[in-house]
């Protein structure tokens, strides 16, 4: 099997997944360019031009079969892609990452009270109106230990969720939590019909059962090996959206060559991608159009041991300065990634954007500087010391980035040993302390559940963070982020998060490698899909349709 795309999910509290692999190239087709040249994501597009003509069917590729359609078990690209096509959350992330009303509107009468009012006329596919009971039930499923869903940690500041009228749900918090709305605009906030879920029982979301949501595309079938089929919902409650595609099949295609020939021959009409070595082939095909959108994920080196040489911040800085990031962008990502300035991808600036942009642009780009790196190594007295990096030679992109670290170490007199494990066992670095014991760090591509740099950052810099493997603790970062979580004003919150990011950019709890962009690959005859990473969390095919040219 050649070119198999592997992704591994990993630890997450309030956010974050880990995937292994990386990505691709750039086709700048700025249809809706981000405003202003000073924007950190200038040149990237958040959507492809809306479709205008009806289309009978679209085959949409994901890197493996969908395993479940129950949102509480959605943890990876295939499940997210299928769920976000059909289901809607309380709030909704726009393609640019901003959060607005979804199934409900939000008001906050006090910092510890969130009141969600269901929009009038919102109905499930079967015509039933969405009630406050449905919402409470859907949210409560996340934390039900019997269901063992993946998102209970999201609700750790919640003290109660109650229906306060037939169309109103009130969430009471133990302390202010301005990160919760982001999560409720993501997978944990998806609204399901209570009576339907109860009637389906343990079959809900499995191939043996059905699902019931509110989105513009409705569930038709879930056949393992064939895929998930969704059809246009003619009675979609939001009359401003008219789904143009009769039927969308979400199909797992694990081999990248198979995916590529599928795109070239028209057997597959679209996919969100990264880590495809065949990107140039796709871009040069007259049948295919590739859009480059803002990404929310970061390709990074996770440091899991601060007791070794990497415990000295100067060694971390030296390693970071010696890394040939442009080389990684060119060879691994084929151009489709940005040079980092911070830990987080600038695509995540979903609120307080001007504050973020200004702070980001005033931070230095992490360019290679061997002279300075050597100097830091000398000051630290670390020359000749050895670090071990966990990697898998079976995961081409991980192996390439680990190789770049070995070269960086060599340039500054730091011995970098590579410890390779099988692709299937790579996940153990994230979940098994024994696997981490032998290594100083390992590679990841990681993202948060919503557009906020803090969504990912908090998982590895805060002491209880789910990915804080080395017990990193910087009091200033911790207090900045804690304050940000309790700050209502978006610009003030952005300023606090920016401050934390700036410290993390020099203190380097992780070493960011590159910031991947999000690739939307479409057949030339269809258009309209969301191009940013928002597709993972909110409906992405509202405007999908034919170009009308054929």
């Amino acid at each position, binding site marked *: 099997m050649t070119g198999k795309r592997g992704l591994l999910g990993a630890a997450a509290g309030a956010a974050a997944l880990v995937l292994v692999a990386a990505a691709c190239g750039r086709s700048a087709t700025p249809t809706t360019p981000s405003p202003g040249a000073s924007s950190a994501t200038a040149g990237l597009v958040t959507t492809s031009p809306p479709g205008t003509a009806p289309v009978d069917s679209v085959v949409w590729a994901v890197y493996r079969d969908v395993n479940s359609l129950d949102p509480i078990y959605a943890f990876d690209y295939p499940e997210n892609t299928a769920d976000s096509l059909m289901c809607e959350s309380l709030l909704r992330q726009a393609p640019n990452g901003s959060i607005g009303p979804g199934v409900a509107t939000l008001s906050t009468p006090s910092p510890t009270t969130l009141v969600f009012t269901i929009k009038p006329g919102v109905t499930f596919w079967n015509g039933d109106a969405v009630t406050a009971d449905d919402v409470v039930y859907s949210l409560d499923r996340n934390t039900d230990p019997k269901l063992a*869903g993946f998102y209970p940690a999201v609700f750790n500041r919640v003290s109660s969720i109650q229906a306060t009228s037939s169309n109103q749900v009130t969430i009471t918090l133990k302390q202010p939590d301005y990160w919760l709305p982001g999560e409720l605009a993501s997978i944990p906030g998806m609204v399901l019909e209570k009576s339907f879920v109860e009637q389906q029982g343990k079959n809900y979301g499995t191939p*043996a059962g059905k699902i019931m949501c509110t989105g513009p595309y409705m569930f038709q079938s879930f056949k393992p090996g064939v895929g998930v089929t969704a059809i246009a919902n003619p009675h979609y409650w939001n009359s401003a959206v008219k789904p143009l595609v009769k039927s969308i099949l979400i199909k797992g295609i694990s081999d990248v060559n198979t995916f590529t020939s599928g795109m070239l021959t028209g057997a597959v009409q679209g996919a969100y991608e990264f880590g495809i070595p065949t990107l140039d082939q796709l871009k040069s095909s007259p049948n295919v159009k590739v859009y480059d959108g803002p990404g929310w994920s970061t390709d990074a080196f996770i440091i899991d041991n601060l007791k070794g040489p990497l415990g000295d911040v100067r060694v971390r800085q030296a390693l970071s300065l010696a890394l040939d990031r442009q080389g990684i962008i060119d060879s691994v990502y084929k151009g489709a990634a940005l040079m980092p300035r911070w830990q987080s991808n600038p695509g995540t600036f979903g609120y307080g954007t001007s504050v973020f942009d200004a702070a980001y642009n005033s931070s230095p780009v992490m360019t290679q500087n061997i002279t300075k790196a050597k100097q830091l190594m000398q000051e630290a007295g670390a020359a000749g010391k050895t670090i071990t990096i966990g990697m898998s030679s079976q995961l081409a992109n991980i192996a390439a980035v680990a190789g770049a670290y070995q070269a960086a170490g060599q340039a500054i007199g730091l011995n970098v040993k590579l410890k390779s494990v099988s692709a299937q066992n790579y996940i153990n670095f994230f979940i098994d302390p024994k696997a981490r014991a032998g290594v100083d760090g390992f590679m990841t591509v990681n993202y948060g559940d919503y557009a906020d740099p803090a969504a990912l950052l908090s998982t590895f810099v805060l002491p209880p963070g789910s990915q804080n493997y080395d017990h990193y603790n910087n009091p200033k970062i911790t207090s900045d982020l804690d304050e940000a979580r309790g700050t209502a004003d978006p610009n003030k919150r952005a300023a606090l998060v920016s401050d934390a990011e700036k410290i993390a950019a020099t203190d380097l709890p992780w070493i960011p490698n590159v910031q991947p962009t999000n690739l939307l690959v479409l057949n030339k005859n269809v258009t309209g899909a969301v191009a940013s990473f928002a597709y993972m969390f909110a409906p992405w095919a509202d405007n999908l349709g034919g170009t009308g040219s054929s």
Partner: protein
Amino acid sequence: MLLASLLVASFVIFAAMYLAPGNPIAALSGGRSLPPSSIKVLEERYHLNEPFLVQYWYWLKNALHGNLGISITLRENVSTLIASRIWTTAGLVLYASVIILVVGIGLGVLSGLRHGALDTSTLVVTAVSAAIPAFVAAIVLILLFAVKLGWFPALGNGTSFLSNLQHLTLPAFALAVSSLAIVARVTRASVREESNREHVQTAVSRGIPTRQVIWRHILRNAAIPVTTISGITIASLIAVAAVVEVAFSLNGLGAFLVGSAQSKDLAVVQGISLVLVTAFVVVNVLVDILYAVLDPRVSLGSRAA
């Protein structure tokens, strides 16, 4: 015999899966850190907290009652999952077998009986194609016949019988190509060997019609080694099919087995393995029966040399 094979295979596979590193819950949750209470619920649901032999006994008891268990990742009955995919793999292997038998034996017989250009070119072509692994054949076939020429679809299953046939053509050839070459070469060699036997020479010198000599004296005797090699290659196709199914994104058992083994979905791996072992044993039994038909000296149960 079948039952003994199944029992041994199921135990060995179960043990191997048990010992292999990794954790189905981690694979299931993508490594998201679940609260201990959730982990406990999941472990109890799938009996993951029991000792190895108890787990195996539990599985065996259910399997004997026709219940192959539930897939951890898909939360669906294993038998349903297998049933929905078995025809793809069966069709693919059958199609490839037909290609191997018809083209492989045909080519072997022709080049065995005739010296000259056909024989030489068969030798060269089969020497090369015998060395082509199925996944390379898949890439080349897709590039040539799907991407460049557009004659066949690049991936997926069809919806009707005819479109299924069209969708399975490239995968079947990819699967068949190296086995076909081996069968052709063995057939050619054994036809050549039989042709030079004394009784054949005698029959020719006595003026018996060529057609009769070929059918009764050459092919019938050459059939035993050809049956052996065909049986072995066809049985091995069942395992190789996984590679081709992944390459063509077919909804088959092999691709499913690979994915399930990676996510440590024990019940699925066990279920598919049983199907594969059964198929393997059945093919071998068929070969044994064929021996007896071809050579009356062979009695069922003992094996021809």
